[in-house]
């Protein structure tokens, strides 16, 4: 059973531009799904509609078996964590966490034991009487998480919850959130624009751009097998080569680059005009290139030493901005600037994508 389904959802605020369009997405029960995209891509609008703060212009939203499209916010039973925490400054930590239970008329003894359990869950035992202003950013975030989980919602939404924290704390909270998700088995939908965060935490990632869901897949599949140029470029780094598909055989195709050279690639798009996406770390140099389907002479333009890896700028195929990354491992070929060297890559590492 799906925990959440979006069916043909469209949202327009002004009647002209669609903030979200043609959204079809099913979230599995107990899944950790991340909505990833640049600002203005529609990820937050999607979350806002699911929470109930906005209603879709068209389409329907289901939570479990229930059509919640017209159900008001407070009746949806969703736990929500906000970017700025949104803790009530007029209440103590304990009162904040008890809030969802109080508005539901939960008995006092029950409320107290649940609040104590929620505090223990986020490792803030004994903090119930504190004022929220006395807490650090990380502690406030933990209180917000406890408040969202205390009434055992079927679904928890997290809107860039770690955006305001410094990097070290953010990594620790990522780990804690992931652990909580594993322990409670609750469905979590997470919004972020940080791709590393999305990759680390999620079962699946849904990538948005310009109001459209571009691809939803497990992090590794999303990285290795992007289905559009946008996803290839937004997630990690990609070299992009423009050209035209000349022939096709099975899932492989031959692409004539704009510069004249021919490349064998994996065909993803049906259109003849295409962009090849090639990850920098998939380019191999020197003797290792011998076994590759695609081989070209190149010259090293620039080298940056990044410790665990070398980042090379290469001149090849009539351009001088191909990026290659080499792991700093034994057997590195000579690649000082100016060196002429053969480069190569496999057909399956180079994907012919639509714009």
């Amino acid at each position: 059973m799906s925990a959440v389904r979006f069916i043909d959802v469209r949202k327009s605020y002004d009647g002209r531009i669609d903030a979200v369009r043609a959204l079809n997405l099913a979230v599995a029960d107990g899944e950790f799904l991340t909505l990833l995209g640049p600002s203005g891509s529609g990820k937050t609008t999607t979350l806002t509609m699911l929470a109930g703060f906005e209603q879709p212009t068209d389409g329907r939203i289901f939570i479990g078996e229930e059509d919640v499209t017209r159900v008001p916010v407070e009746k949806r039973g969703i736990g929500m964590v906000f970017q700025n925490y949104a803790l009530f400054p007029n209440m103590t930590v304990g009162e904040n966490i008890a809030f969802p239970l109080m508005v539901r008329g939960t008995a006092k003894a029950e409320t107290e034991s649940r609040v104590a359990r929620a505090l223990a869950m986020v490792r803030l035992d004994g903090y119930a009487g504190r004022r929220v202003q006395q807490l650090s950013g990380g502690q406030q975030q933990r209180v917000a998480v406890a408040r969202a989980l205390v009434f055992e919602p079927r679904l928890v939404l997290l809107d860039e919850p770690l955006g305001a924290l410094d990097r070290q704390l953010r990594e620790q909270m990522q780990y804690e959130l992931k652990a909580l998700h594993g322990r409670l088995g609750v469905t979590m939908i997470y919004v972020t624009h940080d791709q590393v965060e999305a990759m680390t935490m999620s079962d699946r990632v849904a990538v948005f751009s310009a109001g459209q869901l571009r691809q939803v897949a497990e992090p590794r599949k999303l990285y290795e097998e992007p289905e559009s140029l946008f996803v290839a470029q937004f997630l990690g780094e990609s070299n992009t080569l423009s050209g035209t598909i000349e022939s096709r055989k099975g899932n492989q195709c031959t692409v004539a680059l704009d510069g004249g050279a021919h490349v064998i690639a994996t065909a993803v798009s049906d259109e003849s005009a295409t962009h090849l996406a090639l990850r920098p770390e998939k380019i191999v140099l020197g003797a290792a290139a011998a076994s590759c389907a695609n081989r070209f002479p190149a010259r090293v333009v620039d080298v940056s030493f990044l410790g665990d890896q070398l980042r090379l700028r290469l001149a090849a195929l009539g351009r001088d901005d191909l990026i290659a990354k080499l792991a700093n491992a034994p057997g590195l070929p000579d690649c000082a600037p100016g060196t002429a060297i053969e480069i190569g890559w496999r057909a399956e590492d180079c994907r012919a994508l639509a714009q």
Partner: protein
Amino acid sequence: MPSRNRAYWLIVLPAVLMLVVLYLAPLGDVLVTSITDPKPGLANYALLFTSGSVQKTLLTTARIAGATTLFALLLGYIVAYAMRAATTQRQRLMLFCVLLPFWISVLVRSFAWLTILGPQGPINAALQATGLTDEPVALARNETGVLIAMVHVMLPYAILTLYANMRGIDAGLVSAARSLGASRLQAFRMVFLPLTRPGLIGAGTLVFILSLGFFVTPAILGGGRVLMVAQYTALQINETVRWGLGTMLAATLMIAVLGTLWALSRVIDVKRLFSA
């Protein structure tokens, strides 16, 4: 350093002198007069406990100031709440309308109310035309009239103070409350209303203190029948020439205001309230 300090003092000296000569000295004179005229002692202050007319005046003052505060807060809260929710453009228009009465003299406004609320005024005409009453309702020259006009004068103060407070409240908090299961009413009662408490206390204090010393409005709309402490004081000094009684009432009023502020300072940070 000391010389620079001296230069600093020279700059503020005129202002300090003016304050001492024109404000503190007369104030001291008032306080001294209240315990020396007609003869030294606390006889004037004893009137607070013995004189029926003094007590009645103080009671009327407290009652009217209290009622004015209550109504100004209630109406002001609604207006401030609406302003907060409005678009920026509407907000500007509403703010303009709130400030508009400040450009008209209190005297003019009071006479305007007298006309509007009077037996031949539009309100009574409308009431009789619709058949709700046969006789004109007494809306002016009594406490009702004073109250209506005073609430009108005080409303901008209440609105502006409450609005400043409400603008500082993160709208996300109400959304958060709703997403956690609170109805609109619960979100308002448990989150928004408590957060406007400083605004309510600030606006309430401001309106109450200003109302205590009101002179023009009750004088005109009370028609001589509603006597508040400022009028009673003026009467003692201008008409009956009982300086001792007049200055004692002025001193009492001042002590009441300071007392109110002191009581307030026990509850909240006054400095923050009025600098906000």
